[in-house]
């Protein structure tokens, strides 16, 4: 385009002038649809404010992943380190500090998605939802589905009970998340964890990670929710992460490692596909997993005779932007 001559001194003025002439699509009237959706959500039984409070904290345990502490000057994305689809690791310099007030009450739909029946979740999930054995947990107290690109994030929530202590003061006994996604899709979006340990473990034939200790602070698994920020919530739950059959599992409880693994292995057997990447048996997937575990990137971590590599962790889920 042949442009008019201009000095750049008045550039900002000209840009400001543009605001009257830029074309934006007509703004749709959102009121009706928004109010209808709000009404619909208000009709979903929430169990009252106390229960909402619990669900808010249940959201706390939605997100997790791990990055490596001990490398304060290193900041790098380590996408595949855990080799768990949908999980991304970002190294951060420091965990947020400061006093963390108790979480505020929120609606139950904020972080886990939409509350549904188990049958409803089964219909939504592109994979078979696996329930722990009946003598351990059995059917969940609540089921949530969060729709994501290419599938659904299923959250099974169990209230505390005998043998299943409450996670911190969350009102949650266990949260078992199951999701299937492409590696590049970020389902667990952002969380920050204080010091803690990450330990490679086996869950049956699958390989996974045990993340324990430290203080887990979740920013928000759903960035559309501004309500959880670095100081909004906390959880001291221990997390088990593993993948089988292309499905990533995340179990957060207050149980110790062995009890959590026992709970995880109570899931009914899965017919593994050849693409399972975390199998420690024979095959390319197991080689890949083992290579990932034997390669403490950025030179951090210390070896354990039993499990290969220990890491002291400071973690953040993150997404670009």
């Amino acid at each position, binding site marked *: *385009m042949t442009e008019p001559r201009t000095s750049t001194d008045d*550039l900002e003025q000209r*840009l400001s002038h*543009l*605001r009257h002439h*830029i074309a934006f699509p007509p703004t749709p009237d959102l009121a009706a649809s*928004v109010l209808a959706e709000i009404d619909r959500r208000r009709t979903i039984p929430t169990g009252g404010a106390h229960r909402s409070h619990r669900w808010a904290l249940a959201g706390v345990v939605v997100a997790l992943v791990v990055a490596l502490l001990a490398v304060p000057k290193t900041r790098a994305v380590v996408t595949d380190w855990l080799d768990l689809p949908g999980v991304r690791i970002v190294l951060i310099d420091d965990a947020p500090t400061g006093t963390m007030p108790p979480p505020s009450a929120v609606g139950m739909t904020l972080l886990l998605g939409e509350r549904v029946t188990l049958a409803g979740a089964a219909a939504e999930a592109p994979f078979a939802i696996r329930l722990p054995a009946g003598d351990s947990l059995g059917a969940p107290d609540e089921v949530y589905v969060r729709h994501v690109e290419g599938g659904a994030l299923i959250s099974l929530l169990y209230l505390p009970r005998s043998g299943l202590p409450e996670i911190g003061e969350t009102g949650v006994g266990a949260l078992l998340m199951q999701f299937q996604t492409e590696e590049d899709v970020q389902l667990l*979006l952002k969380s920050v964890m204080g010091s803690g340990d990450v330990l490679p473990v086996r869950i049956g034939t699958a390989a996974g990670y045990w993340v324990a200790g430290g203080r887990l602070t979740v920013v928000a698994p759903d*960035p559309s929710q501004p309500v959880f920020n670095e100081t909004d919530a906390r959880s001291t739950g221990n997390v088990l992460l593993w993948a089988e059959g292309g499905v990533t599992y995340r179990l957060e409880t207050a149980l110790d490692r062995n009890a959590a693994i026992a709970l995880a292995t109570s899931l009914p057997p899965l017919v593994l596909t050849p693409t399972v990447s975390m199998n420690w048996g024979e095959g390319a997937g197991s080689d890949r997993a083992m290579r990932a575990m034997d390669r403490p990137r950025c030179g951090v971590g210390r070896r354990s005779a039993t499990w290969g590599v220990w890491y002291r962790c400071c973690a953040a889920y993150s997404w670009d*932007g």
Partner: protein
Amino acid sequence: MAAYEELLRRYQRLAFRVAYVISGDTDEAEDVAQTAFVNAWLALSRFRAGASFRPWLLRIVANEAKNRGMAAARRRRFVLALAADEAHRPLVADPPDAALVTAERSEWLVDHLNRLREADRTVLTLRYALDLPEAEIAAALGCRRGTVKSRLHRALGRLRAQITTDQASDDGANPARGGDLP
């Protein structure tokens, strides 16, 4: 609910336009704005009394837009455009002769903006086309206000450099032409 409806109607255009700038897609922007208002309502209990609603809402909008865009990996490129008749009709507020020039300037400037990298175009659009203050741009972009300042500064610098380069090129092609428009 009536009060929230009033808020909704007051800010729906702003929310929609910010969503459009970020997502680059009309339908996506509508979905984003709608979801953002629902989410904002759900989170109202945590809205800090006395705080400004606009940046809070914009943060929700922007996060929703980014989340959808990234998850779908199909974010469209946001492109500025003049109002449909802008390039061909004199601007009402200007005298006839100046109006023609102004329309030409607007078209030319929009063309330059669209040639910028998207991040620059986005921050300049939020600042100048939507007239957002830096605090609200920071909310929409999920960054600190100081970062907004630096991004704006760099974006303006690149826009100036681009204009200068084009003018120098034009001078080379048309040496008889010179001087700035009044």
